[in-house]
């Protein structure tokens, strides 16, 4: 129990510290690397709660795919930090507002937890006990039965986002030469090579 407590505080402290470093690091690439560290600490916290599936998916999706592309883009951007910092003061009120809203939401969630501690237990009621089915199975059963329409709807939202990105970037340029592998492979020797006997002094 003590070990778990120590692990929790290590993960939580590192999570907050790397979160602070994300916004305070001078180099944007360092910021992304700290963001990845923060994802890892969050995954560790999920593991401590026994949510191993969520932890692994967090690492696979966010660290393994999203953050790679993020890093990819940030590394190639040519950002002028001085200009960036000058503009920061103008959007500060907006940022503060977003932060306040998030804080209020967190307070609402945690406040509900403290005022009525059994609410969480009622909400979690459809999930069977942890010793009967594993975490992953419980999640699957819930997601493909009770919440199947919401699950499908979120898939559709992602699909629309993908189509939107394609529509925004797709343009047909004339004169682009593309490799047609099927045509290349189906070429036969007799279609392209002609052997001729060339008489001396006459040419083809």
């Amino acid at each position, binding site marked *: 129990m003590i070990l778990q407590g120590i692990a929790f505080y290590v993960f939580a402290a590192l999570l907050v510290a790397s979160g602070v470093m994300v916004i305070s690091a001078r180099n944007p690439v360092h910021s992304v690397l700290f963001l990845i560290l923060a994802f890892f600490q969050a995954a560790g916290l999920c593991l401590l709660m026994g949510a191993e599936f969520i932890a692994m998916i967090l690492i696979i999706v966010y660290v393994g*795919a999203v953050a*790679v592309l993020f890093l990819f883009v940030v590394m190639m951007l040519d950002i002028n930090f001085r200009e960036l910092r000058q503009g920061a003061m103008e959007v500060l009120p907006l940022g503060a507002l977003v932060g306040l809203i998030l804080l209020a939401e967190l307070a609402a969630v945690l406040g509900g937890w403290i005022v009525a501690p059994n609410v969480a237990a009622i909400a979690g009621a459809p999930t069977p006990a942890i010793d009967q089915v594993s975490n992953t199975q419980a999640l699957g059963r819930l997601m493909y039965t009770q919440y199947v329409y919401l699950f499908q709807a979120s898939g559709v939202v992602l699909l629309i986002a993908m189509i939107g990105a394609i529509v925004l970037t797709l343009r047909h340029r004339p004169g682009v030469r593309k490799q047609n592998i099927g045509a290349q492979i189906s070429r036969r020797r007799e279609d392209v090579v002609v052997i001729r006997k060339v008489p001396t002094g006459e040419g083809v």
Partner: protein
Amino acid sequence: MAEFWSGFLLPLIIMVLQILAITVPLLVAVAFMTYAERKIMGAMQMRQGPSIVGPFGLMQPFADGLKLFAKEQILPEGANRIVFYVAPMLTFFLALIAWAVIPFDYGVVLSNINVGVLYLFAISSLGVYGIVMAGWASNSRYAFLGALRSAAQMVSYEVSMGLIIITVLLCVGSLNLTDIVRAQEKVWFCIPLLPMFVMFFISALAETNRAPFDLPEGESELVAGFMVEYSSAPFALFFLGEYANMILMSAMTSILFLGGWLPPLPFAPFTWVPGIVWFALKIAFCLFTYVWVRATVPRYRYDQLMRLGWKVFLPLSLFWVVLTAGVLVTFGWLPK
């Protein structure tokens, strides 16, 4: 005090010894993998391969290692010092920690977690960070181009790899690696899922940056790609990490498709051999095929590599997931 000993210190010591029992043979295997690769390639190209240091050149990997560690460490000008040194450490570290969940025999596993296959997938998808960080921190164009190629390549092939793993999981009904191997007691998955097996093997080649997909370090265009600025010990760490990753991917292939520690036929002369030997033999077979491919196939062009990943493997593996699910549901073969 006695409680401290039996409740904390003793398990800790046992754990450290178990970890050593996995990593030390792994590093020895990595050393001899480099030797085997050179010998096999030599034989395939009608050369001798290393033959001077020790009997049959067996001491060659250790001579190479000593040479590497005795060289001068160079930090390129304008390089980002911390990221530059963290990158090879990360590569090496990731190649080692994945082995925590690999079952070597029934019950012989360091940590038998429920989501073993997801853990392996997560760790292998992190391998790209070592390369991207190395390429960026080196402050060199060759290294950076190698890193960019590698990032795009590994992300692309991970997608189809994930779908292939889902196909296997559909047939098993569990994410636990031990369960996956035990589900193959009747028939290895490489037989009913043969196209997936071939695609997984090719994706593994791309994921480990091996020939014919070794574009991140393609020496004919990028000198040595992302590791061009590295020398001495950091270079050795990259090298060890890459080979450990190859062995890991072979282990993953044998667990998912070749029946892990199971003997090829479930009766007498085969069952006498301990499971760990079968597992090692299967890994060795996969590694031999890696070298074989390297000695045979020329390097892909980059757009062809991307085309293969996105336009061939992704639709094909998606189709196969749907087909497998359909067959399992239609015939009522879904695992309980």
